[in-house]
């Protein structure tokens, strides 16, 4: 299930999930912790706070590994959502209501094609981001780094989000069907 040209983060996180594999966790930590730290510092956290929060985020990744389903989201997206919530907590001291959990846990035998598609989305979006005019990319970065208020955020990203939406929509339909 590993993609050809990048490390198989999803495979590693599944090892953490299923076997509490510490070597797999260490590999994830080396890749993601410095990125989470950078994300938090760009969002206005000082170095010490960002380091501390990045530690928290990685510990949460370990603790919540049981919720990770590689056919739903890439590891980068999963780490981002944890880091974002930690940021809201630490920097804005606000609460973020989360949608109701759906009754779908990780599928013990997920469809490998679906896993591959979900895991490659981050890479594909990364290429699309790089291809955007600089001014547009900067607006998206500023929105996600917390530099824009909700009324300043521009809805039009120019990114191909339709394919991601459709894939998740389909998975939700399948789930609703199973639940009857």
């Amino acid at each position: 299930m590993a993609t050809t040209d990048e490390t198989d983060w999803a495979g590693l996180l599944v090892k953490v999930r299923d076997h509490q594999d510490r070597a797999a966790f260490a590999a994830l930590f080396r890749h993601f912790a410095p990125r989470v730290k950078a994300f938090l510092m760009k969002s206005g956290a000082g170095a010490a706070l960002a380091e501390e929060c990045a530690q928290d985020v990685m510990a949460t990744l370990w603790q919540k590994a049981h919720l990770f389903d590689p056919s739903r989201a890439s590891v980068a997206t999963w780490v981002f959502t944890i880091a974002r919530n930690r940021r809201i907590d630490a920097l804005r001291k606000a609460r973020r209501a989360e949608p109701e959990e759906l009754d779908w846990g990780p599928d013990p035998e997920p469809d490998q094609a679906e896993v591959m598609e979900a895991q490659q989305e981050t890479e594909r979006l990364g290429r699309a981001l790089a291809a955007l005019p600089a001014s547009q990319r900067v607006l998206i970065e500023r929105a996600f780094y917390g530099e824009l208020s909700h009324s300043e955020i521009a809805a039009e990203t120019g990114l191909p989000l339709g394919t991601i939406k459709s894939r998740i929509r389909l998975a939700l339909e399948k789930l609703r069907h199973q639940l009857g």
Partner: protein
Amino acid sequence: MTTIRHHLSDQLLMAYAAGQLPEAFNLVVATHVSLCDECRARAASFDAVGGALLEEAEEIAMGEDALTRALERIEGLPQATRSEPLKPAGIFPAPLADYVGGDLSAVRWRKVGGGVKQAILPTGKDASARLLYIPAGTAVPDHGHRGMELTLVLQGAFADENDRFGRGDIEIADEEVEHTPVALAGEDCICLAATDAPLRFRGLIPRLAQPLLRI
């Protein structure tokens, strides 16, 4: 799942994914997404943008002993096991039930006149959220849209000159919207509303006291 015709805007979903909404708006978005698979999927696609940004971001080196500390730290951490999600039996999806501390029977309503009741929910001060109870056939209180206002229907329905809003539908109003929504006949209408403008109680109450006669 009922058919939802009025959805969240891309702007709100992106701001939710970016973590930039006031708490009261987070609550409305999370409650709508709980009822709406379409917006759940759209929200996830904006999360994926955050994932791509994180992946592409520069790295800032962690402290030398960071990995050792992390490994020590997870040593003592139990991995949570999957628990069955709580499925509220009432009309409030989980995030709202969490704020209210239960379902409809747990709401501490205050009368505001004309049979209309409201309950302000505890959120941060940058925006406010409240539940509204509007008897069937009564005018929805007009809050004089300053700033942005979100209204999510949880029970019953309301309609204005242009449209009808039923369970799960969300109305997004800004300063330009001027309308006279009315709770439709049938079930009493219950909505979750949030605004980032200060609530204007003084001007509100006299207007609320006059149930609208035309439907």
